[in-house]
């Protein structure tokens, strides 16, 4: 019967848990809290050794309820979490980290910092791999908070530098440098481990840049962007590009940075800048790449109605057609798109819609359609007809231009 009793106990525990879950999923936090108190009581009497530790569940459910309960406040939350920290050694760091997140989201940066410092000093036997990671994160977040206080002090110093006397300045400056050192050490540490560290990289580079250590900053950014162990994060390349741009690096290095971004994410917003940069280049190869980039951008559905991208393409196509050189570039780009671009971009539906919504978009698209598909193309016909009807000069010019260069269409599609 003791076995039966145990089973009953387990069953009622499970039932109680399901009630709690149910209430939480229906946002009935009060009801959930009531069930939760009895659940916790039940666990106190539970001497069974189960694989799944109930203390984790208590922590998770309890903090969720406290977050949403109408009468929950930060003070109560703190005391609950402090109890939770003592419950499980294995989860100590994780609970600390989540506690810090909660404090940060509630604007209690100071308390969060103290908690981080406390957690950092925690030692218990040998650390598992996960605990190691958590410890590194704790240090990194501490570094981040150090960085924020550094940047605050920096701003104060920069703004009110003149009106304060030198002694205060000096101590403030020293404090600021102290913050820098603490932040730099911790941030540098986490950047060695593969991961997505956008936040930390930005701060670290900002610190280094302020103290003029450009080489180190560049190295960090290069490592972050090009180390194959790191995920293919577009932001890594963006940061590198922005850094290079800030420091007036050569066009060549900027282009090579963006080229890699283009290979990774052809639909990135920087591709418009990239295209403009390549257009300005004297080299044929670069301009050829520019055409490729702008075509690739317009492949993506997110760019479908982007005026800027279409006008870029229209300009380059027009330039190529009027110069009469490099028509084969267009031909090459078009060959892999001619079976689906007409339905994707140049259908009658889109002609109508673009004309109604954005005239200059319709203009750019109509130009490209007229060149690529000839004057009989539905899109071109509709838009140029509407444009002429509305007596807009540029549409009349467009019509003349396309009519004149109708042979190009045959050469491209042939």
């Amino acid at each position, binding site marked *: 019967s003791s076995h039966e009793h145990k089973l009953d106990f387990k069953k009622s525990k499970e039932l109680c848990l399901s009630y709690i879950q149910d209430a939480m*999923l229906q946002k009935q936090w009060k009801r959930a809290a009531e069930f939760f108190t009895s659940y916790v009581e039940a666990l106190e009497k539970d001497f069974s050794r189960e694989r799944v530790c109930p203390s984790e569940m208590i922590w998770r*459910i309890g903090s*969720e309820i406290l977050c949403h309960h109408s009468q929950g406040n930060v003070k109560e939350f703190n005391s609950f979490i402090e109890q939770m920290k003592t419950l499980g050694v294995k989860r100590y760091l994780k609970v600390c980290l989540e506690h810090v997140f909660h404090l940060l989201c509630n604007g209690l940066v100071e308390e969060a910092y103290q908690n981080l410092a406390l957690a950092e000093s925690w030692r218990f036997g040998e650390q598992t791999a996960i605990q190691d990671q958590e410890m590194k994160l704790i240090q990194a977040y501490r570094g981040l908070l150090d960085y924020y206080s550094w940047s605050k002090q920096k701003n104060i110093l920069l703004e009110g530098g003149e009106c304060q006397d030198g002694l205060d300045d000096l101590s403030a400056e020293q404090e600021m440098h102290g913050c820098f050192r603490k932040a730099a050490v911790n941030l540098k540490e986490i950047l060695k481990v593969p991961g997505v560290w*956008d936040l930390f990289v930005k701060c670290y580079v900002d610190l280094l840049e302020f103290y003029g250590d450009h080489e180190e900053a560049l190295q960090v950014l290069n490592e972050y962007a090009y180390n194959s162990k790191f995920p293919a994060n577009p932001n890594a390349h963006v940061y590198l590009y922005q850094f290079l741009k800030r420091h007036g690096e050569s066009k060549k290095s900027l282009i090579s940075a963006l080229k890699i971004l283009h290979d990774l994410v052809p*639909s990135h917003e920087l591709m418009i800048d990239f295209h403009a940069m390549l257009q300005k280049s004297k080299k044929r190869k670069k301009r050829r790449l520019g055409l490729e980039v702008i075509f690739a951008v317009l492949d*993506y559905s997110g760019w479908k109605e982007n005026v800027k991208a279409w006008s870029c393409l229209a300009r380059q196509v027009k330039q190529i057609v009027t110069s009469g050189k490099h028509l084969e570039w267009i031909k090459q780009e078009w060959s892999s798109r001619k079976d689906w671009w007409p339905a994707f971009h140049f259908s009658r539906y889109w002609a109508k819609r673009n004309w109604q919504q954005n005239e200059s978009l319709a203009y750019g698209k109509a130009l490209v359609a007229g060149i690529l598909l000839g004057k009989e193309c539905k899109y071109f016909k509709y838009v140029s007809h509407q444009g002429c009807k509305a007596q807009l000069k540029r549409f009349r010019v467009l019509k003349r231009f396309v009519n004149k260069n109708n042979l190009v269409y045959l050469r491209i599609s042939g």
Partner: protein
Amino acid sequence: MEFPAALFPSYFSAGPPREDGDSTPAAGWGEHGQVLEAGSNHRQAETAFVPRRGGMGESWEPADAAAVPLLPPNASRWISPLAPQDILYHGVLRRKLWAGKTAATLDFAKQLGHFFVDHPEDVFGSLGQLLHQNFFLGNSKLRVSVCVGVTTPLPTLPLSAAGSSFCPFSLQRGSRHSTIRMTALMEEIDRLEARRGCHKRHLTPRLRWFSHLCRDWLFEVPLGLLADCVHEELLQQWASLLFNDSLTGGALAWLPPEDTGVRTGCLVYPGGQAMNHLCILLHGVSLGRERSGSCCNALSQHTGFQDVVLEELPHAQGSPVQFELNGRIQQVSAAWVDGEDFIGVRSDYHCGVWRMPGRVGVAPTPLQVIRTDMPASCLTVSPHLPGELSVCTQSGAVYLWNVETGLHRLRCDPQTMFFRDHSPWRWSDFTAHPRVLSCADRTGLQCLDARAPKRCHFDLFKVGEEAGCQQGERVVLPMYLGRAHPSHHLVTTQFSVYILDERLPMVPVLKWAHMMKDAPLFAHLTPGGLGRSHKVLLGTSRTQELLLLQYQGGNQSAYQLVGPPQKLHSIAGCLQHLPAQLPHHHHLLQQRLSIPAAGLAAALQEDGPCESLTVFQLSEAGDIFCQRLAHEAAQPPTPTKRDEATQPTSRASPHPSLAVPSLAAALRYRHWLKALSKACGKHPQHTCPPTFSQKRLFTHRELETQAGSSALHEQARQWLRQAMQEGGSIRGWDTPAFQPSPLPTPLEPAGGMDSLSTRLTAAWSGDWGQWWEERSSFNMAQRQRALRERRRRQKRARGRRSLSASFTSSLTYQSELSELSDTALPPPLSPTQLPRPAGPSPPLSPVLDEALLSSQSLRCRGIPKERRKMLRDYLSVCTEGPPEPPGSQSSQACIPHSQGLSLSQACIPHSQGLSLSQASSASRPRRKRPRMGF
């Protein structure tokens, strides 16, 4: 297409999933994940942080207490689903295997046995014919007759025929040596049957010998082949019982109107008996509050079901356009391209595509159908190009299907992508680039360029350490979330839900443990506008769970899961709000409502400041239920005049108390129930009440001769005749003395203890002796009372008999009869009583019973002895009360005929009102046609 300037921090490492994944049942709660600085304004005094999970989401409150049926119940002849006990081993063997912790064991032998018994002609047909002469099933000794023309008993079919049949046949000389006597073998088989479940049963040597001899040649279909097929089928059934992935994606689609202000859209769903009718509600489903009168009329003409104006509840208008298809519809997917809706429909071996012009009310046109050799597992419609779809089959092939250019195979690989997994399930969907498709199997997702699928591809998601997966985690449903953001994808597994961005492959930008009891097979996205959150609905099949999540970000800000997840009503949840039912009706209803879900769709309705989300859920039986969620910022609806008149209570507060459904919903439940019972009661086999033939009971003369014996006899005979003509039964044989006793007196109150506890209590308190005294005296008193009661009854019976004074009957028989009528009188089964014989029928006295039934009176009527028993049985049936009313016979509609493999013997609450002979035949479960006993 902007990318967030900074993403939430996360570790990244490659490799197989970690071993110590946290699989607590509450894994989704209490985590913020990470934090990120909100806005990059350093000049602010304090930096603000935002969590990855948490924060305030939009508030969507359910508007009613439960889901409400949208359409009348699907008229499927619904067969109760296969249950594990139908195909698994029971009894000794199972217990033995269970002890060894072996996985479930399929009862393969039982299935094969059923097949042999149900289809003997197919199994032993021709060999049975051939061996016909050589088997002898008679009881007599096998002898050889010399003279030609002597009839000799011979069997017709070996094994299958239980009794011997006699057919004239002349044995020829010498056949003694080529004929064997099977009777002993049959007896042994019967004995074996009787010992079923016995621990120590051994096959007798004779049986072993016989099976050894015949195994190879007796069967029409080679036994090995047949066994292989049966086993394969069983395995498949078992696998689909554990996890049925053929429904992935769901078979319900909502086509929103082009203009969001319009309140009607189209619902596409499967219907019909085999779920093979594609139904498209052309006139749409109106979501609005105001209804015009014309719609209402149209409705009452067509369906006759929803002829009530239901405010606040979505409403089907008109009858759907139906297309009959060649197989069960497994998936319906739809996309809106260039002002038209394209609807893709997948059944196992066929996929079809329909086009639906944007204007409401125009019939959809079928465009193309393809047939596949292997079952198709996925069909998705391109949101970019009109008439383009992607198809996957279980052979591992992925096709891009264009209505104009045909099929284009992108990949054919029976192996899974990242590691080995046995599942043949494949999925594919579209991405931000119209020529790039995502392909998925259980191990992850890859993106392929359709122009060069072999060369250009990249990994989007992998079950592994990269995404922080657990061991054993598998992809269940990938979905392209292009309507929220062109580069977003959703992946669900049995544990978690992931949001991916194709610009940052392999690293899920959001991950959350969904804690659902089953793997989410259905998902629906309702994109939010600028600054709003995207709403993702997840649905499971077996448990009918529905979960609403909200996420935002992806453009400028990083991805965040906002607000707590929210559980929505399931179909089964409305059971408690339905009117009270009789227990077996309740059970049937419960079964019907808790059938696995088969699809999910949602419609967003914007009505000025008010926003509401209507969620539709489809069940495998074809029923569609819906529920409305109101956006919290929305104003309470202004009641129309009509409302105020009819339902003042539910409109009094903007949020009706959610414990009870609104009046409108209750009305709908009632209509739905009525329609359901009507649909289920239509079963032709069971509507006619059991009939008895009176030809063999009495000859015409027998009935004639006794005319005028007494007025009572005459009356009884008249009732009998009338009842037989009407096919009903006679009620009222019972007298006040034989009235069914009222409800049994309740047992001792719950506090009362059983004898053991009282005795122990007494022993504990020390006065055990007193207890014994009390008990024995109590027993004595009880016995005395019983004795007195019996005597009184006997006296009364004797007195009654003396009234008739025409005969004496044995007392035992009388008590037998009273026992019968006492116990067999059923409680009334349903509020609708059986049609009784017209006119008031005064209760018949028991005298009549006895007079009619006593053997003496029967003998004097010249009824032969062997028919007397029959007559008694017959009349006792009549005294038992009405047979089951037609309404409740729906219970029988779900008894599947056991054929071959689908052997789900539903356990049906057996109605007590059936005749004895019928009940006994029903207790023998494997007899197909119940014998009526006459």
